[in-house]
């Protein structure tokens, strides 16, 4: 589903040039659950942004579903992204000014899905995330765990093939964090590909495979069992 070949990403300011990604080659198959780990500043979020087509790489190739997307214009990227990729963030990124229902509906609006259909889709995903009793509340009125469930609802409402999660449990206590991980695992079991950036060894255990980044390069790629071994 995803294949990158020698991705580079360089950030330039007037004086400093930072190599955020260095020759990153990665393949993620349909239905996989991959965790990306590494210390702060190693390039995890940059990689995720490129995989999510929020940003273009400086060099290298990026194939999404078999077609090269690394050089596309922003509006083309937006078109491919819509309905194919869902995002989950550490800080939830819900719009404070609109309620739960409207936040979840957002991607469907831009996919130009008809009103009644939208309502049905939102209802079913809210039921599933066990948050439908809060549909008329505003983000500030919810607990962190509830907010993240809303964010996941928004990420999956359009049935995307891929979910990109950036530290999804980073702002949550362990009970809520576990709940979110269970939700992601369940989605993965139903066939959604998931790539998750995390600091938490505990969370990474839910993944099939772990990619370790250090200073912008992939240093190790282990299957889950090997990770267990390393940990022991």
């Amino acid at each position, binding site marked *: 589903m995803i294949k990158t070949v020698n991705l580079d990403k360089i950030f330039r300011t007037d004086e400093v040039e930072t190599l955020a990604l260095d020759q990153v080659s990665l393949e993620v198959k349909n239905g996989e659950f991959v965790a990306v780990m590494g210390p702060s500043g190693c390039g995890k979020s940059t990689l995720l942004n490129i995989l*999510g087509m929020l*940003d273009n790489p400086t060099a290298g190739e990026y194939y999404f579903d078999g077609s090269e997307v690394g050089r596309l214009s922003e*509006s083309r990227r937006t078109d491919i992204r819509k309905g194919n990729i869902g995002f989950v963030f550490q800080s939830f*990124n819900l*719009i404070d000014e609109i309620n739960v229902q409207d936040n979840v509906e957002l991607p469907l609006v*831009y996919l130009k899905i008809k009103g009644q259909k939208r309502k049905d889709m939102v209802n079913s995903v809210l039921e599933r995330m066990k948050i439908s009793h809060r549909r008329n509340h505003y983000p500030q009125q919810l607990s962190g765990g509830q907010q993240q469930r809303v964010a996941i609802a928004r990420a999956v409402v359009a049935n995307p093939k891929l979910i990109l999660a950036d530290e999804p449990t980073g702002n949550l206590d362990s009970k809520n964090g576990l709940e979110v991980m269970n939700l992601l695992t369940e989605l993965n079991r139903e066939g959604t590909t998931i790539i998750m950036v995390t600091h938490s060894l505990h969370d990474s255990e839910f993944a099939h495979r772990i990619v370790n980044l250090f200073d912008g390069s992939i240093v190790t790629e282990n299957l889950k069992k090997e990770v267990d071994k390393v940990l022991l």
Partner: protein
Amino acid sequence: MNNIIFRISIRNLLKNRFTSGVCLLGLVVGFVAVILVSLFIRYELSWDKHNRNYDRIFLVQRNVALSATNAATGSITPFTPAVTASLLEEYPGFEKVTSVYRAGDRFLSVSAERQYRIEEGIYADNNYFDLFTYRFADGQQPDDFGRPFMVVISENLAGRLFEGAGAEGRVVTIDGKHDLVIVGVFADLPVNSSIRPEYIISMPTLERTEGISPDGIEPASFLTFALMGQGADPAAATAAIKDLFAGREGMEMETLRLGALADMRFDSVPDYYNIIWIFGLIGVFILSMSVFNYVNLSIAGSSVRGREIAIKKINGCKRGGLIMQFLGESMVLSVIALAISLYLTTVLLPFFNSIMGTAIEPDFYGNWSVVALFAAGAAAIGLLVGAYPAFLMSSNSIVNLFKGEFRAGSDRIRLRKALVLLQFSISVFLICLSLFFLIQVNHLTTKDIGFDRENMIYVQLTTSAEGTFFEEFRNRLLQSPAILNASMSENLPFVNFGGGTINREGGEPGERVRYRPNQVSYDFVGNMGIRLVRGRDFSRDHPSDISHACLVNETAVRYFGWDDPIGRRLDNNRFTVVGVVADYHVMDIHNPLDPVVLTLAPGGMTGSRVYAFRYQPGYRDEAVSLLASEFGREFPDDPFEIEELESAFMNENAYRGYQTVKKAVLLFTGFSILLAVTGLLGLVSFSVVRRTKEIGIRKINGCPDGTIFLLLNREFFVLLGISLVVAWPGVWMVHNAFPGAYKLPLYPWILLASAAAIVAVTLAATGWQTWRAARRNPVEALKYE
């Protein structure tokens, strides 16, 4: 203000140069507007106030019926000014009464070669100087004005005539004929004087030179003023003299009244008080806009100062100290703005005076009471604009300040929106007003005034020479291809106009109607391009037309209540109506039309007459030189000038008044739009920052740039829509309150155009920032979190 706070204030202002600059600019614009407006209002309200007896001087007027069908009355000078004056002096409360005669254009000279045309001068008696305040160079008020051929002149005129040499005791010649002895030189009167003569001639001279006496019955050009005693009650005096003439034969309908000197300016300028309160309103509006601006920008500015305030608080700064700091900054800024504004005002005053036709002096330097007033005002404004951010920012908890959560405070957003809403409303209001004045002035300038003022020159000539007949003179001039037509008349529209009262066949006994008389030659109607709507023009084929026939205008027909005017009689049956002309404007473009009666006097060119000539287009210079030589040859002793009728039209008071109001309203509308744009820029940059996260999330979820752009602009357009709802009724009310006989309706397109203009201004101000925000990479947007 404590020294440290002052220093920190200055430092902070310098640190945030852009914000302080914009705040300062807004305050300066507001202050300059308010200072200009208040100087203007003070100037306008101080007309004639230089007179020591200002409160006690009254103009004696006579009420006359405007028409048979209309009960309203107009005011003109009483008959027999001298008799009226001496009768009035018998009444209790009247201290002194004087009559003056307005001379109009005259030529003064000390040598035959150089004639000075002086527009304003009067004839007066000894009493005049007891009523009105004049400062004479030698401190002596003239006491020999009972003798003929005495004159006093202004310093300005003395300077022009004698170029600095002493004028007193010298001789000056009037109209090249009569020598007058200069018995005094007086200090120039303020420009805002209703009667502002350059020369004052002793009253007996008038009878000796012109044959006009205040003892005569005709009151034209006379004004009678009364000085009331200290503590006298003008209302009681008015009641007492009301029926002075009631019992006299032929004067049954006459009543007298007293008009305060304060009302002279009001009566001479159309819509005087309206102009003043519109200006006052505009001043208040502009000042409030600049205050809103400041509050708006300082709230925006203070939100980025959260960290600074938090650190100060952590280090022990008390709330009072923070409040003092904010107030200190705003007051420092306000006082700086005042200083800049006072300077700018002095720079702008000559320009302002030239467009407003005023003579306002920047007299606030050294006038400490005025400066203190302005300074107190500026300090108050400083407190006012600083108060809200000061109390708001200092009340936040340290934790909130650090987290930056105070940014989202929805109260503050609502307040800022309300301020921008008010700014929008004021701008829309002023745009509507500007548009209205533009089309109104355009309408007055271009509307059909009833005659053709183009390609027409005229000569005003007063002569005692006899023996030249206009018919011959005219025939001689018409030989030239440059002159197409010529006429002679007592009065010429926009140049001079007579006034009087007349009775009519079928009127009530004793009733007299106010009208505009004019004695004209043959061809007057044709030469002026006045349309004849019924009957016939004066004709050389009807010898009895002379002193028997008359033409009236349509308004006269209406006022007299005639169905068939032809054959009706006027003025004790002396004149018979032979034709009706279409209405034309006689004195200005603003006042309602009066009845006009034209009588035929085609004979000699003696006395005061105006000669109008229509020239072949393109042959103006030829026509002028021909007239100069013909008039010069025929009347070698009588000075004259040749002028354009078009420029007489342009110089007329009401026309100039409308032009100045239009220019001033446009100027201040420009100010207000500038302020609205600044306010808007502040709000939009704030809004874009505040919504950065939302923009990012929406874009990640597939929202196209165009939709983001619309989303960001929608809130401004909502504000804009509300502001229209607020402003339009105000426009409607002001339009309703505005008087004027030729007021245009408030066309709906004016309102729509104001909406279009404000939409354009809004897009210009917000478009770029919002478009940039919409185009931004969402990753960048979310990095802000």
